[in-house]
């Protein structure tokens, strides 16, 4: 058996989320060009000794920690996908394509934007951080986003 095939690299369209306006906060660090973060690919960076997962989705940039709140599994190695919404029996309603990560251990799903557990299966969240694009560069800060649940 060979290693997993590399994810297809996609250069993305213009980001769905508008770029922030106003002066750039001082605590943001430049972590690369927007093109360094292919659409739909969870790219890990090391920041202050921590592994952070950065991903550019159709909905915008997301930054997550690498620790699943369940048993501490490496979330950034997980599959990025969508999920099935709560539904009537025997009906599948696929949604949130590209906005959900599945822990590679027990498969728990978390929203990339908010870190929330899909379906509320677990109380804990995956840590989420501030990440934004300005003028073709991606900036990161190891603090929670202003409104993670609204993204």
């Amino acid at each position, binding site marked *: *058996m*060979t290693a997993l095939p590399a994810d297809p690299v996609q250069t993305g369209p213009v980001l769905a989320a508008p770029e922030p306006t106003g002066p750039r906060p001082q605590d943001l660090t430049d972590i690369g060009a927007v093109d360094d973060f292919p659409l739909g690919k969870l790219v890990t960076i090391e920041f202050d000794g921590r592994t952070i997962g950065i991903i550019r989705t159709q909905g915008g940039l997301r930054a997550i920690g690498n620790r699943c709140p369940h048993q*501490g599994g490496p979330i950034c190695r997980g599959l990025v996908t969508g999920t099935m919404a709560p539904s009537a029996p025997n009906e599948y309603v696929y949604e949130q394509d590209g906005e959900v990560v599945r822990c*590679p*251990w*027990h498969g728990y799903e978390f929203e990339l934007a908010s870190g929330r557990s899909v379906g509320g299966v677990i109380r804990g969240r995956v840590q989420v951080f501030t990440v934004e694009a300005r003028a073709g560069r991606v900036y990161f800060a190891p603090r929670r986003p202003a409104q993670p649940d609204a993204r």
Partner: protein
Amino acid sequence: MPTAGTIPIVDCDVHPMYGRFEELVPYMSSSWRRHFADRGARTYARARDRYSHPNKTYRVDALPDRGGAAGSDRDFTLATHVQPFGIASALLLPQQPYGVTAWGDSAAAYAFLAANNDYFRDVWVNYDDRFTLAVTISPHDPAAAAREVRRHAGQPGIVGIQLLLMDKMMGDASFDPIYEASCETGLPVAVHQSGSEGCYYTSQAVAGGVPRSYGERHVVLTQVGGANLVDMIVNGTFERFPGLQVVMVEWGFSWVGPLLSRMDLLWERDPAAAPLVRKPPSEYVHEHVTFTTQPLDEVESRRERAALFAPDGLSDMLLFSSDYPHYDTDDPGFVLGSRIPAEIKEAVCYRNAVRVFGPRMLRGAGAASASAHEGVQA
């Protein structure tokens, strides 16, 4: 990476793999080589067109850096699992043999299993003292299986037997040659799910009917463990083989207490209904059976945790296991750090395993770390 605890750990469920079939070839005759080249060798048991897993059944982070399947790289396993958690002995339960439970060809099954046993002994067990092996046998030909057990008995690092199950439950008399060999060689019988459960006429099923999905099936898969326990007790297996030790791997254990209570009550009310049972059924289980901890039930409160570990004698019956490198692993740091009660941790980590498998379970470096721990204790 969590730091290793000071208590040595015997991990009673680690699944190594060979990388390519070609690696097994030196361990089989040329005619078997040709047979498998011609007809292939299916190395998974579950019917994936009946119960498909939505993700990978292995942990993606367990894929070796050098390439290859999860569990196929000795050094990666040592560096990322054995070493960091202070595992003194990893009981190897090779999983590719599970596929033979879906094979009809008894001779091919034997040849494949024998090659696997020789391979893992040669390539893993002889490589590092911390790898110990349960040699795999199947029910296709019990006499051949018994011979296979005896062939490996006494070799360094061979500590047990991995018995694969098909349609017959473990109390069936056809297993007697295997149990005889087990008792004679002092190699306990370990039983792990093969994946064939609930799939075929040639395998065992859960109660009631056909669960609709992988997850629903997994809820009740534990039942097959219970069925085999009942079958051994009712058929007098432990009376015939008073030295037999059975290790139930990955069957869980929260269902055990209620089943034992029920059997004891049934036996008390009408002992003549089970004439081969000479004492309360629970006593057979306490004396002859142990259970690995993974997958540990996830309890919500201290009260529930107390309930999980409450059954009489359970602390002597539990063996720590991780199920590395499968997806539903119990991370040793997480489980041993906060989920196993402190007062039974030593027993669960290694003392019970050493009692069941014998001192041969700890070799070289593994034995040294246990001695060091004992020294600190003394």
